[in-house]
């Protein structure tokens, strides 16, 4: 893919990062750190030259690739990108995030938005649901792929490993799991709270094909996302930075679940407008 294309994507995601921060700011609630670390991964999947086969105007047709946001608290990123690529979430609606009566709940909500592939938020469950979608496609002999994004703290949940065993046993080679490996959780760095290393070897030993990429670099993300194996599900370990794009948020756990103040938002937006992330 041409670097021109990725340059355009980097320009697009300036707006997306801006939207995410504004959404969280207007309700003074949400997860900026973990939303910002996932931007390039989700954009690579959903944008109109991206990896997923989907139709924003026909979001419920059976013939589509699917994306399960297992790391549910990153949902502002998903809402912002769905709006940007033409799903029926309007600009004004974005600023109703977490309001009473809004479709845009604090975590993905399938009852309110039918094209949310799963209602997540309780960590550890989305990979199983994604596997269910993958198995359904195999049963129906449909060639569509299923993508899911998990967090590194989330990988401490036992159910993730149940699904890991199950996906390779069931040869779910239409399933790709992306790990948003931003190294931090709420109570501290992952390595201090509950270490998960060595990650690559763990997933390989569970029978997955593993790629390790820079999660903020499209020329690494795209080939990994496009890859499939003849039998194995794929794990993409995407090294990312929590709060990517805003220097005072980057790598800081305090920004896991804290909304920016008016001044902090202003500073953050200035920084974002000066950066090209993804290339």
């Amino acid at each position, binding site marked *: 893919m041409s670097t021109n294309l990725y340059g355009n994507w980097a320009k697009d995601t300036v707006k997306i990062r801006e939207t995410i921060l504004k959404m969280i700011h207007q309700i003074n609630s949400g997860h900026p750190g973990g939303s910002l670390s996932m931007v390039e991964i989700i954009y690579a999947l959903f944008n109109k030259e991206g990896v997923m086969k989907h139709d924003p105007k026909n979001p419920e047709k*059976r013939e589509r690739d699917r994306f399960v946001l297992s790391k549910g608290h990153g949902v502002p990123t998903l809402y912002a990108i769905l709006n940007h690529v033409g799903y029926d979430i309007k600009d004004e609606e974005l600023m109703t995030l977490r309001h009473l009566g809004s479709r845009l709940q604090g975590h993905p909500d399938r*009852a309110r938005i039918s094209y949310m592939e799963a209602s997540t938020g309780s960590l550890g469950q989305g990979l*199983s649901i994604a596997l269910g979608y993958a198995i359904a496609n195999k049963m129906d002999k449909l060639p569509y792929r299923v993508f899911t994004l998990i967090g590194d703290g989330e990988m401490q949940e036992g159910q993730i490993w149940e699904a890991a065993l199950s996906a390779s046993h069931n040869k779910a080679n239409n399933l790709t799991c992306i790990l948003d490996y931003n190294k931090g959780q709420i109570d501290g760095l992952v390595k201090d709270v509950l270490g998960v290393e060595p990650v690559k070897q763990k997933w390989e030993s569970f029978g997955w094909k593993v790629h390790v990429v820079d999660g903020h670099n499209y020329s690494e993300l795209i080939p990994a996302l496009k890859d499939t194996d003849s039998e194995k599900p794929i794990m993409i370990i995407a090294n990312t930075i929590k709060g990517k794009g805003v220097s005072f948020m980057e790598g800081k756990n305090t920004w896991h679940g804290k909304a920016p103040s008016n001044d902090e938002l202003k500073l953050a937006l200035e920084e974002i407008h000066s950066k090209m992330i993804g290339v």
Partner: protein
Amino acid sequence: MTKIATRKSFGTALAKLGEKYPNIVCLDADLSKSTMSNLFAEKFKERFVEMGIQEANMIGVAAGLAMSGKIPFICSFGAFVTGRYDQIRMSIGYSNANVKIIGTHCGVGIGEDGHSQMGLEDIALMRAIPNMVVLQPADDKECMEMMEWAVQHNGPVYFRLTRQNLEQYNMQAFKPGNFPQIKEGKKVAFLGCGGLLEESHKAAVMLKEKGIKDPAVFNANCAKPLCDKFMKKLTDEYETIVVLEDHTTMGGTGSAIAEWVSEKAQTPRRVIRYGVQDVFGESGLPEDLYKKHGFTCEAIFNTFSK
């Protein structure tokens, strides 16, 4: 008539319904020979997924299958599947995934395996989830009717099934909230659930024969939803309502009935929860466990003779 365990009724029914409804799929967590999902598995190999001992993953995978248009039945012991409560609450309940949850081995009636394998709180857990339908068939015909109803219903359903063989009745066709009546009576109504319906019925007949009381007997086959119209008629006609269940009294069908009666009955009525009295189960022969917990005709008779 031959007695049939409702787990067997389920297995037979699913294998049959699989012919009529090609979207039915079935998942089991290494208990297929016990839950009797093996009957479906043998007939429809490509539509059966053996999950291994992973109830949480089974729940999530079923949700994904349901949201792809399948009608998944997930099978395990009631204790184990409802024990993964957050997964049912979120991946099935909150997602409104069209998954049918089969929980076998309910109650102390399973016997020698003991407490860990006994579903004693499953109704309490399942009925607290919005939109969950909670069913407890009492016999083979009813189980088949409930299964077909569940397939046609859009939304999660929990089935509570026995290991032990149950008496067969010829009751009216299943309709959620309408408890079939199997004996007429006055003043007192026995609501028997699942495995306790037979003993409740025998005790009611004995009480009438001895001229002590004349309890009506109903089959309380659905803990959620309750039917306001039926409950109104029940509470208008009967002063005392006894709910008999092989389940803890903390939150089961008895609690559901007591809640309704206490808020909505026109006239104040007494509800007695006759079940496992907030204690753990244990190993023993099923008949000895039933004697210990008062789940026999004689014990029920003695209790209500006073």
